């Protein structure tokens, strides 16, 4: 028994790879010796033997749940096993767009002299019943995380106009200096002509020189466009900051009346960087929709999730067909009788038959690690159905696209 464990190379890796459980093997002092297939899938990393354990934990962003901090190495069961101690921990979290709660168990394996030869750990996702059951608090927390996930894209959307606002300001600064030089030379000319003396040719030459240096044809053509673009840039930054403000301040406990058209505009603004490279997004908003009663941040979250999913679906379709095609995303609002509808439609890959029934399950995801945690749609459904008494449905055609529909009860009354 003992000798068969002498070397990890003796273990049939096909068996380990077939295990639906993530297995890690580490050797002293703290190096990764082996990860099975499930482990690589879970962390999205395939470290080579000899890779330092500390960096695995850091690069995979394994956090202690609720602390926002990397898991302290010394407390991690795998490290404890390296020190000869078997243990387990249930407060691990994979820091992703939406945190993935994990359980780790680890045991040491000793050599003949009693020294730790290696440590073996398993890592598994906490099942739903083990995770935070409190819908409202977890919705609130996740809300912020998705805004956090979008932060890099939002920064890009702000930095880009700031770049050309800055460049155009510098340009207009130079323009102004040149024009003032021209004006100055003309003032001297006028001053000289007042004396009644013949005007010195030199002053005229000065004017001509300043005019040439000012490159007036270029300025005349470019300065008005520069100003227009700067104002456009300012408007873009303003609208993003506005959307951020609406979506990111923590929701009140009290429901309020929500305008779904405004919601659609804000959600499309804030997600612009997520869809603009994949698709065009159009808003087809009905005039004067009735309002709904609820939590604007959470409903915004619903739309953000659906829009980001739509953009991914377009990318998936391109990946499947190998074509580079700019997709279409449509956000529609409709107000009929006592119901208000929100639709997000894409012309992406569609959802295959065999997984249609599962897309609303927590942790079910087809996306590569780091791109989705399988909590988006379940969250959307909880917000729509449990928090807003609405209905979430979708219809889809493989290879043609998907349409998600949120139906909410209309309400015109304040409390």
């Amino acid at each position, binding site marked *: 028994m003992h000798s068969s464990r002498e070397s990890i190379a003796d273990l049939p890796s096909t068996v380990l790879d077939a295990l639906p459980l993530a297995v890690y093997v580490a050797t002293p002092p703290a190096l990764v010796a082996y990860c099975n297939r499930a482990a690589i899938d879970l962390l999205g990393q395939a470290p080579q033997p000899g890779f330092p354990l500390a960096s695995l934990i850091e690069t995979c962003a394994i956090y202690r749940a609720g602390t926002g901090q990397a898991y302290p190495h010394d407390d991690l069961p795998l490290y404890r096993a390296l020190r000869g101690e078997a243990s387990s921990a249930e407060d691990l979290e994979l820091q992703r767009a939406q945190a993935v709660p994990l359980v780790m168990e680890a045991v040491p394996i000793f050599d003949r002299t009693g020294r730790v030869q290696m440590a073996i750990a398993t890592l598994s996702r906490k099942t739903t019943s083990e995770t935070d059951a409190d819908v409202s608090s977890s919705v609130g927390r996740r809300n912020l995380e998705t805004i956090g996930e979008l932060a890099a894209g939002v920064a890009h959307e702000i930095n880009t106009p700031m770049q050309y606002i800055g460049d155009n300001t510098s340009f207009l600064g130079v323009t102004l200096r040149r024009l003032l030089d021209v004006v100055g030379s003309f003032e001297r000319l006028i001053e000289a002509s007042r004396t009644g003396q013949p005007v010195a040719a030199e002053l005229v030459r000065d004017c001509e020189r300043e005019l040439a240096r000012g490159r007036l044809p270029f300025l005349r053509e470019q300065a008005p466009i520069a100003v227009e*673009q700067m104002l456009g840039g300012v408007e873009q930054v303003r609208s993003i900051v506005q959307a951020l403000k609406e979506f990111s301040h923590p929701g009140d406990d009290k429901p309020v009346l929500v305008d779904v058209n405004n919601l659609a505009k804000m959600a499309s603004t804030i997600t612009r960087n997520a869809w603009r490279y994949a698709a065009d997004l159009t808003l087809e908003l009905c005039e004067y929709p009735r309002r709904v009663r609820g939590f604007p941040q959470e409903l915004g979250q619903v739309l953000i999730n659906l829009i980001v999913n739509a953009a991914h679906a377009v990318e998936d379709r391109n990946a499947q067909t190998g074509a580079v095609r700019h997709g279409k995303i449509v956000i529609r609002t409709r107000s009929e009788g006592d119901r208000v509808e929100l639709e997000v439609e894409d012309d992406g890959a569609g959802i295959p038959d065999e997984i249609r029934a599962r897309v609303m399950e927590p942790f079910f995801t087809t996306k590569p690690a780091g791109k989705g945690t399988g909590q988006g749609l379940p969250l959307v459904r909880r917000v729509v159905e449990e928090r807003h008494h609405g209905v979430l449905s979708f219809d889809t055609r493989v290879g043609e696209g998907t349409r998600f529909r949120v139906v909410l009860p209309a309400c015109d009354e304040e409390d």
Partner: protein
Amino acid sequence: MPQRVLFVDDEVGVLQGLSRLLFEMDDWDMVFVDSGDKALEALGRGRFDVIVSDMCMPGMDGAMLLSRVHAESPGVVRIILTGHSELEATFRAMPVAHSFLTKPCKPGLVQQVIGKSCALGGLLDRESLRTLAGSIVALPVQHHVHARLLDAVAEPRVDMSLVAALVRSDVGLSSKVLHLTNSAFFGSPCNFVSVDRALSYIGAGMFRRLVLSRKVFGTGGDTLARDGLSLESEQRHAAACAALAFRIAPRPELRDDAFLAGLFHDVGKLVWASREPGTDAAHGGPPSRECRARLGAYLLGLWGLERHVVDAVAYHHDPATASGAAAELATVVHVADGLARARDEERSGRGGELMVDVGHLERTGALSKLDEWRQMSRTLGESA
């Protein structure tokens, strides 16, 4: 000949803003295109000196574009100008970009960085050598130093003083660390001339990621054997020269510059050794030692090192040619190089004759100190 600069950004507003910002740069011939494909087309049609590309673009993004440019037109200086703040993007650009600027860019910075790159052309008139320098992504790091570095960053708490000692002892590591900090990969461009300061700016966590990415620091150096060199002895000589240059710097504030110029004085040898086998003739034959020094200096300049350090490296064989702030520094490196070489020869029982430009030293008043420095060199050699 005007400098030709190619700007690439999918946002037309950014391109137009740049064209207005730079409208008075009469000695630059600027072309603006809105995709990576169009950029490659433009590069295929004509010569460019510099490319400035956005990172996030549909289809081919900035990192992909610059990899293509690196492969197809390595002589073109590659600059990223990005609005992205994600580290992932920075990491992907690191191996292929010479500089990394972030939007919104400080006023004047775009002009300054492009201008600095253009000004380097004066160091090297052979275009094939500029292309050779442009193809360098990283300089070789000694295997045993790299292994010790991996051990050091495997610790939960990285001992940064150990890391600093390892980095200082290696030309490949030091040059890359300063490249990353001085070319703005981590925020604003810095003018660090001290490896320690650059490392503390990068920080332990980030440095660990750099090492573990295995794409930033170079390995190898196997091609050196072709020129009868070994990486170990080159590194030993560089370290000896750096230590001596530090000691003989005429003023304390020059010490860090002197150390760095001493450490990097023979980078040109490493660059030249990286050429494709059998291409000597295409490069116009092996370069003279002066030309080889300029080749190394050119690469250091592309990597954002301070110009006087670059010039000190460029003119360390012929310090009388250097001017301005670099003249003094070039002389220091010239003497340190000569002393370190003589000491090595003495030890191995060969001549040990000190090869320095005595006339130049006499003119600059440094000759009187030569004996004192030689003694210093011997003492340093014994303690090493």
